[in-house]
């Protein structure tokens, strides 16, 4: 019981302190969570337009361990299947543990238009177990995304998660599902260095400002450095490693109050 109470307390506390607005939306592997304009990676439940740029099928899994507490972890799986007409992506996310958990399941569609811009749309189903009614409740949520290549080295990204502010309302419970508006840029300072910026606004939370650099040091190794701020400034450090068709990413975020947050992901890209 103590474990339940302490976990619940931390979850609630995190809602106020942690600038990522919802635990159920997995953090992307882009440094400082600047994924909205990241044209090289599609992250599950982030900007679905990025799915449009994928040329080869890929699958990946991710694990986010918030503040060294397995009860606050988010597990993610994603699969992208490109084809000539429209790219299709499937994603799944699970937050929590046996006594409290939330799940998100999504299917997304995106298309790249002549490599000038990409648009995407995703339909998600959110569900969680509510002890008040001793049952699962869920809701369908849309996501829309856009990515525009304004020039060869400058991209703009827009994403909205739950734009219609759909919430779960039953006789006993009202569960707010986050509604997030994100805008960001991606600028290639050189072929090896990319700089991203992003602003997120969850409609009832503070703004989140994020910026980060990714430097391709070696052909197989990428170094990432960035920070984001909402109530607190959170420095972020990470690296990416590529071996064959596998891509491995590990990011660390040091929250001044809550401690270390680690995000790890492995992706496998199929050949053509």
């Amino acid at each position: 019981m103590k474990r339940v109470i302490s976990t619940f307390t931390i979850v609630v506390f995190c809602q106020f302190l942690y600038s990522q607005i919802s635990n159920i939306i997995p953090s992307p592997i882009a440094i400082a969570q600047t994924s909205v304009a990241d044209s090289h990676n599609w992250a599950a439940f982030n900007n679905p337009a990025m799915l449009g740029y994928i040329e080869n099928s890929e699958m990946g899994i991710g694990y986010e361990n918030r503040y060294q507490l397995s009860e606050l972890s988010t597990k993610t799986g994603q699969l992208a299947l490109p084809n000539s007409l429209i790219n299709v992506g499937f994603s799944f996310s699970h937050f929590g543990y046996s006594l409290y958990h939330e799940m998100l399941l999504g299917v997304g569609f995106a298309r790249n238009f002549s490599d000038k811009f990409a648009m995407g749309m995703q339909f998600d189903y959110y569900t969680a177990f509510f002890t008040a009614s001793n049952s699962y409740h869920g809701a369908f949520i849309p996501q829309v995304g856009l990515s525009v290549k304004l020039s060869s080295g400058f991209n703009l990204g827009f994403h909205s998660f739950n734009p219609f502010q759909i919430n779960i309302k039953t006789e006993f419970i009202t569960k707010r599902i986050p509604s997030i508006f994100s805008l960001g840029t991606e600028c290639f300072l050189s072929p090896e260095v990319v700089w991203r910026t992003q602003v997120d606004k969850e409609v009832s939370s503070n703004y989140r400002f994020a910026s980060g650099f990714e430097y391709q040091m070696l052909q197989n190794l990428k170094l990432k450095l960035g920070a984001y701020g909402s109530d607190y400034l959170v420095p972020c450090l990470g690296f990416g490693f590529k071996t064959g068709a596998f891509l491995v990413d590990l990011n660390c975020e040091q929250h001044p109050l809550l401690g270390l947050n680690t995000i790890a992901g492995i992706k496998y890209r199929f050949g053509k």
Partner: protein
Amino acid sequence: MKHLLIYLFLLLVCSCPTRAQDVVSTTEQLIADIFEQYTAESEESIDYDSFFEDLLFCAQNPINLNQATREQMEKLPFLSDIQIENILSYVYQFGQMQTIYELQLVDGLDMTDIRRMLPFVLVGEAGNMNKKIYWNDLLKYGKNEVYFRLDKGLETKEGYRFLPEEDQNQIINNSKSYLGNDLYNSLRYRFHYKDRIQFGVTAEKDAGEQFWGTTHKGYDFYSFHAQLNNFGKFKTVVVGDFRANFGQGLVLHSEFGVGKSSYVLNVTPRSFGLKKFSSTDENNFFRGGGATIRLGKLNLTSFYSNKMIDGDTVNGTFQTILKTGYHRTLDELSKKHTVNQQIIGGNATYTNMNLQVGITAVHTMLDNRLTPDKSVYNYFYFSGKKQTTGGISYRYRWKKLNLFGETAMTDNGSMATLNGCYFSPISQMSLVALQRYYSPEYDTFYASSFSETSRINNESGLYLGAEVRPFRKWKFAVYADSYRFPWPKYGIDAPSLGKDYLLQADFAAKRNVIMYWRFKFEEKQTNFSNSSSVMPVIVPSKKISVRYQLTYSYGNFSFKNVFDGNLVRKADSTWTYGVIASQDVSYVFHSIPLKVDFRYQFFDAVNYENRLYSYEKDVLYAFSIPMYYGLGSRYYLNLQYDLNKNLSLWFKIAQTVYADDRESLSSGNETISGNRKTDIRLMLKWEF
């Protein structure tokens, strides 16, 4: 030399294949964008109907640049006086234009200006404007248009909860409940033969007004207009509903007003003379007839209007003219058409090469005495049954200087004067200076000109504006305005001062990528609410606004991103902020005649002082600039489908969702339970 330049230019144009679509794809969208620029800094509701209809009419009947007069060119509101002068001067100096692209050679016009002009102008042989009209031509080439529009809110408002049909006692019990249903409906018919003959009928019912029942038998508002142009000595003849605009607007300007905007050089209203009125605005027009006769260089105009207006009359007096046009409740209906207003007026304008001088006079008569409930701020407002106003206006071109102005006086001896000068020292730079003085006692019915507020009285100030094109693709517009209210105003209980500055940088990166940054600073004085002093205390209030807009297009898609924010500080309180960010996506189908616009917008302006306005696309003839105050998001879908060559359909659905835990929206009869507001609009256009 001139022709060599033209050919070189044509070669250049032809050698650039069209790869990207222009940012603005349709004339309707172009007009809306121009209007948005005008109204971006304005909080007043401006009659979009007339603005749109005039420009659409210009698109259907383009102005021939080779025989255009200043008056005709002034119909294009985005052109500054200097640009108009330069175009006229070019044609006068070099003769008729051979191609529209010759506009590139006119000083002070860049590609953005030319692209804006293209739908509204043509280059052709100068013809006879007074050509005789035959019945056969009228029937064959005349164009008929019918517009039908429906608006409806999906959420039930408080005022519709008990309709009189459901409860007959409701009318007796509550004079403030709406009598009709929640549908807005308008029906318009237009006929025009080139720009020579125009006539039409407009009918409108606002939401809440009864269509058929005890209080109404049909629409609440009807309007008829007819206008003839260039018939012998008659330059213009209007019958029915019309508007009149002369001089700089200090005496008579019932048209779309101009003021401070990012078109920094366009500071004075255009003098259109008599013009048909075909809008659904139920207040700002004349009803009767008038004519303008051309006598060589002299134009003589005379008109008469007799119409009923709304007012809360008591014992032969009324306190204010009601301008909303709403007649939804018994209370509102009791004030409908209670006052008779007669207006007689005239104008004489003499024009030669460099000089234009005009005299305007208007006499207004009311059958009930207007007696405002006097307090300090409105102490000098007009009261009485009759008023006469007269004024003299001028324009004079002297070398590179264009001087303009008007001085007007009412029969109580109060004066208003406005004087200014345009100057273009080099082709990349245009300057304007404008000084105005409107006495506190000057208050006339149909004045509309350059002013900080909507009234032309109790103000003096100096405005300086400049437009600079230092590099290719870049344009900078800047203005500074300093003003003084010598007498208290509404919400300001003492004489006060104010100033505002604007800087806008436009960058046309490519043909399909344009953007601008706008910065505005305002400082004005307002009442200090926490003061315990018996004497009024006013304190400065500051507002800083920034806006970034990016518009780009690829193929059939076009996109727009807007970031708009402000910071406000009142008295010694802290700065508060308001923010709007939006993403627009538009798509034009090639295989089917369908256009789709989608927007998602987020807003965060918790305090009312930080409220923001944002233009959004709408059905034809409608223009939305909703106010955003609170926290939430708004999204809409706008569709245009051409059913066939003659029939087009527009449909819009928009929803605003508030996330600041409010349980109801609006107030009074307009109250909606919940945090969502959804509106749908439908428009049908039939051309034959």
